[in-house]
């Protein structure tokens, strides 16, 4: 491929690519994102290729291995064009049928379609599935049309048009102005206006300047940046080059976690292709602007996502936050001005340049514009990636898109913003999701993690989980964060084990205040959020643990006892046989009894007892009823 040397050449190439493509030719897109690969997409793709070869359809059908479209719950996902038929949970065995029925006969296979859980109706087209219908997918919507390893696919959907526009039709000042007017705020957590940061770095009279992509997404359960980087790496590269042009930087870094091998691979390929085509390197598109990108793989520390720690890591040192009251935008990598943006922030930039700030600001709320991708996980029917306009309420996201809570359970809370975010209870479900509203509730947008919890979730246990995570992931440098977290964990462990004391809640609150005020970096100052918000909204649950030794959600092992309801026990011996410590006595026609002294509270009996009996119950906060005397244990069955 010859380098593209002008805007005209770029458009000619684009026309050439498009003209080669027959819009009516059947095209099978299979998600090859990490989620679908985990549920067997690789085998589906192999079977698909095999079958097409067998049937001699090589020339008639295109296969596309794409990035993640978000509905990971129902992977592997397949979309067949031009009809846009969406098949979910496709297995290799379904392939021959798909080829013979859908491809050859143009017939839809009902079995593989999405079924609406309430109405039982089948949904044929991807865009009509409620999960997708209620989203506004500006960033990940095109993933299903793109093979992330192919720059042509990206060009076909208008890729690098924004870069050409910025380079040839706009001055850096104009680009800056446009992004400023779009009020694009950082998607990595803080929500700091991107243009303001760009301007700061741009105005520092020191060279060289660096631009960096933060792809060190370490929150448990979050994979927004991963999906963008894996599924559409060129969009991030395009945004990065535009930011570099605006700032006046000629070298950039992509800091990506080592744990994202596919993202690393796709980004590497994308950089190589972009260099070949002239979107990177010397004299980009013949504009005279030079810019190169290096990929830096993170070594697995959560704290390296913090801006100064990330820059220290790029310098080759241990990723630890710097003790400096000077912004990295002014003095970052090797004390040079360094602009750091999140993956999602940069992916938005080409959209803003192409469509204009007015278009962008028409989406979202007063203070937060555009869309935001969330990874919706936990106790929700449709887990996956969702992209919604800013300002959509939590309720809409969880119920309309997420499909509500599985198993008719009650919603309890949603945790947003990752380990340093907060827990939001039901009464705030109608809160519009934007940067400022979430902060008001004591939580934060973070990078977009959203963990839904139902009534079976103990919030104290959740707080303990996050504190435990941060104990390992704090860098350990400053005392409030390291020692504070350690003792928080200690106190929380005591509480969930029923050893809580009067005053523990106040102590936790005091520690939270200290950490928030005195810690060195943002990880430390926000580390107490899970604890402080759970105390704020679920204080009574803490009290129950401490004062009554009761876990209302029946989760905390040490506070829960298992008991067999004599009136319900059918003496089926399932629990008895499954008990690993032989704590259950009983026999044929003998009502089973748990020996509380032997019971290790593993819960196997609870799970084993057939639901129609429901004889094994959990008890917390009250004494276990005395066992039946031995002579009364004979089971008298009613006549059928």
């Amino acid at each position: 491929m010859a380098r593209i040397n002008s805007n005209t050449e770029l458009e000619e190439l684009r026309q050439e690519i498009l003209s080669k493509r027959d819009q009516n030719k059947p095209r099978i897109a299979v998600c090859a994102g990490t989620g679908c690969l985990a549920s067997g997409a690789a085998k589906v793709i192999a079977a698909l290729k095999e079958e097409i070869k067998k049937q001699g359809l090589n020339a008639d059908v295109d296969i596309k291995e794409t990035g993640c479209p978000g509905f990971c719950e129902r992977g592997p996902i397949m979309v067949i064009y031009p009809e846009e038929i969406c098949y979910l949970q496709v297995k290799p065995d379904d392939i021959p049928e798909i080829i013979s029925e859908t491809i050859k006969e143009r017939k839809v296979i009902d079995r593989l379609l999405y079924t609406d859980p309430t109405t039982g109706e089948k949904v044929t087209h991807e865009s009509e599935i409620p999960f997708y219908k209620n989203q506004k997918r500006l960033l990940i919507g095109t993933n299903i049309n793109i093979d992330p390893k192919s720059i042509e696919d990206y060009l076909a959907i208008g890729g690098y048009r924004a870069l050409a526009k910025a380079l040839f039709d706009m001055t850096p000042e104009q680009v800056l102005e446009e992004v400023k007017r779009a009020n694009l705020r950082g998607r990595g957590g803080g929500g700091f206006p991107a243009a303001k940061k760009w301007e700061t770095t741009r105005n520092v009279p020191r060279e060289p300047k660096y631009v960096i992509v933060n792809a060190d997404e370490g929150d448990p359960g979050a994979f927004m940046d991963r999906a963008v980087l894996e599924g559409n790496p060129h969009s991030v590269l395009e945004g990065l080059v535009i930011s570099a042009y605006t700032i006046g930087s000629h070298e950039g870094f992509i800091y990506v976690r080592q744990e994202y091998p596919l993202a690393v691979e796709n980004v590497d390929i994308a950089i190589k292709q972009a260099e070949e085509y002239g979107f990177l390197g010397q004299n980009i598109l013949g504009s005279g602007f030079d810019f190169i990108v290096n990929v830096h793989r993170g070594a697995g520390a959560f704290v390296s996502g913090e801006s100064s720690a990330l820059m220290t890591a790029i310098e080759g040192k241990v990723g630890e936050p710097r003790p400096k009251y000077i912004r990295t935008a002014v003095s970052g990598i090797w004390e040079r001005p360094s602009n750091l943006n999140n993956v999602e922030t940069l992916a938005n930039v080409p959209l803003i340049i192409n469509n204009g700030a007015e278009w962008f600001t028409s989406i979202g709320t007063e203070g937060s514009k555009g869309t935001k991708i969330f990874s919706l996980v936990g106790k929700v029917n449709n887990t996956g990636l969702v992209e919604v306009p800013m300002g959509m309420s939590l309720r809409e996201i969880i119920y309309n898109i997420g499909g509500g809570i599985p198993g008719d359970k009650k919603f309890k809370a949603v945790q947003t913003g990752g380990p340093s975010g907060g827990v939001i209870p039901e009464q705030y479900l109608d809160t519009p999701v934007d940067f400022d509203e979430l902060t008001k509730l004591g939580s934060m947008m973070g990078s977009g993690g959203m963990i839904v919890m139902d009534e079976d979730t103990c919030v104290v246990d959740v707080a303990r989980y996050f504190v435990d995570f941060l104990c390992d992931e704090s860098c350990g440098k400053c005392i409030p964060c390291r020692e504070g977290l350690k003792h928080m964990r200690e106190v929380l462990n005591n509480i969930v084990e029923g050893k809580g004391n009067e005053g523990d809640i106040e102590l936790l609150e005091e520690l939270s205040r200290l950490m928030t005020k005195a810690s060195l970096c943002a990880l430390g100052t926000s580390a107490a959020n899970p604890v402080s918000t759970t105390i704020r909204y679920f204080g009574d649950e803490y009290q129950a643990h401490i004062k009554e030794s009761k876990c209302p959600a029946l989760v905390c092992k040490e506070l829960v006892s298992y008991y067999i309801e004599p009136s319900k026990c059918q003496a089926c011996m399932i629990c008895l046989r499954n008990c690993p410590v032989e704590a259950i006595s009983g026999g044929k026609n003998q009502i089973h009894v748990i020996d509380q002294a032997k019971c290790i509270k593993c819960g196997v009996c609870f799970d084993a007892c057939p639901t129609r009996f429901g004889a094994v119950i959990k008890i917390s906060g009250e004494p276990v009823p005395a066992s039946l005397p031995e002579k009364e244990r004979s089971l008298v069955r009613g006549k059928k």
Partner: protein
Amino acid sequence: MDEITLQIDGREVKAEEGKTILDMAKSLGIDIPTLCYHPALSPFGACRLCSVEIISRGRSRIVTSCNYPVEEGLVVNTKSPDVIELRKMLVELMLARCPNVKIIQDLAKEYGVEKPRFKLEDEKCILCGLCTRICDERIGVSAINFVGRGVDRKVETPFQGTLDIDLDVCLCCGACASVCPTDAIELEDTTNKKPIPILSEYNVGLESRAPVYIPFPQAVPNVPVIDREKCVHFVTGECKICEEFCEPNAIDFEQEDEIIEVEVGNIIVATGFNAFDPSPIYQYGYGRLDNVVTSLEFERMVNSAGPTEGEILLKDGSHPKSIAIIHCVGSRDEKYHEYCSRVCCMYSMKLAHLIKEHSEAEVYELYIDIRSFGKGFEEFYNRVLDEGTIFIRGRPAEITDIAETPEEEGKLIVQFEDTLIGRQRRLPVDMIILSVALEAQPDAEAVARLFNISRSADGFFLEKHPKLDPVATMTDGIFVAGCCQGPKDIPDTVAQASAAAAEVLAMISKGRVEVEAATAVINEKICSGCQICKLVCSFSAVDYDEEKKVCRVNEALCKGCGACVGGCPSDAINLKHYTNEQIVAQMEGMLV
């Protein structure tokens, strides 16, 4: 540079750009607690103790003063209720981690923290990072650093010592241990090199000293010196902390030794003696058994300005109940020195007297003969006897720590023959002082060669005549004084030195030197510059002229012995007065 005005605790202060709040607070005498801060190291921001409340651009917040740069109009409150509450809790957290560390206990007392509400640990390290920073930033080797993160963070060597690799980078300089505020670093555990303390020469190794030190309290000039072999800067080129801290900028790493040439007419050699090292006498156990010390070591120990401030201490820190002083160690001994060192009897008795004065210990003197020959010496001997020192005549055969009876358990036992009662005895004591001999300096040979003076069989410099010329040497203008000529005590040394000075003064006041009438003279026209004459001259009277490539005779030194005349292969040298030809002519005349 523009000055910045800020306000700290209500007091206005002007600061240079780049200074921190902590710098300025210090200049005002405002105390802000710190733990991880060190003026020679980059700020770290880990302990957060130096947190203060600031109002900057109308916004109030908490920042760490050690790294917050001063800015115009900044208002700082170092002791706001928020700050105090925050520090108090930090101290509580630290006390929970390190309940047995002095500096933390002191802080706890200051902030009124009694018992932490948290689970107690027993750590010593507070993870302030001073050690890792000094090793990296100042020593320049980074032999230790933090490993792990979060609550598992700790300071470690590379690979945590689990791999059997040579951790060469550590210089074993001890900077980490010296900067540690909690004494958490044991050098032995940190490095796989053996820490070698720099022992104080002046205190004969009884204490260590720093690489920059004042040699001894009465040193002239009384200024510190840098030990180039030990100073980290001279090893790695880094550090230079002392330079930063020396306010008058007196430290000059470029300074070199200077060789100063002085032209003089007379020289008095007074190079002193060397104290005999008793380690070769294996049976006395010096260096092998604890609490066997030399008289010089004990002398430092008993000195009130010494390392123990005059306290007599055993190795384990306790006070000895009995001390034996052994005379004639290395002297009057045909294996080492046959001569009597002349001073040991008296200084041993002085030590006995000092022990009696400083402690309750029983003192034994084990002697061969008591030689208290000087003025007042015998009287002193009697006084020491009266003080209760026990004198035993007999030269010890062995000092051992192997007990034979329960009373000897844990003691040093001196085995000897008491020659006054003619019986073998064993004497258990806590400490043994070896009264070591005085011997010639190890470089006496080189010095003798330099000045062309002779040495007697015992190695000391030889005087011209023991009775008639006791301070002169065989080389004119070179005199000896003091112990370099032979063991002697202070009065004798002073007397001899005065005599040498008088000899020199006599020469100076005369203003001229009488030379031998018949001295050798070299005919430069014939001299080939072979320097044989220089070799054969016993009086160093011949010099070689590098420029003219000929030899020349110094008439002031020449004794006219004629050795060079006979030695010259080209007959270039003649003695003054009668030439060879004249003598031959005279002889011929007599024979005719």
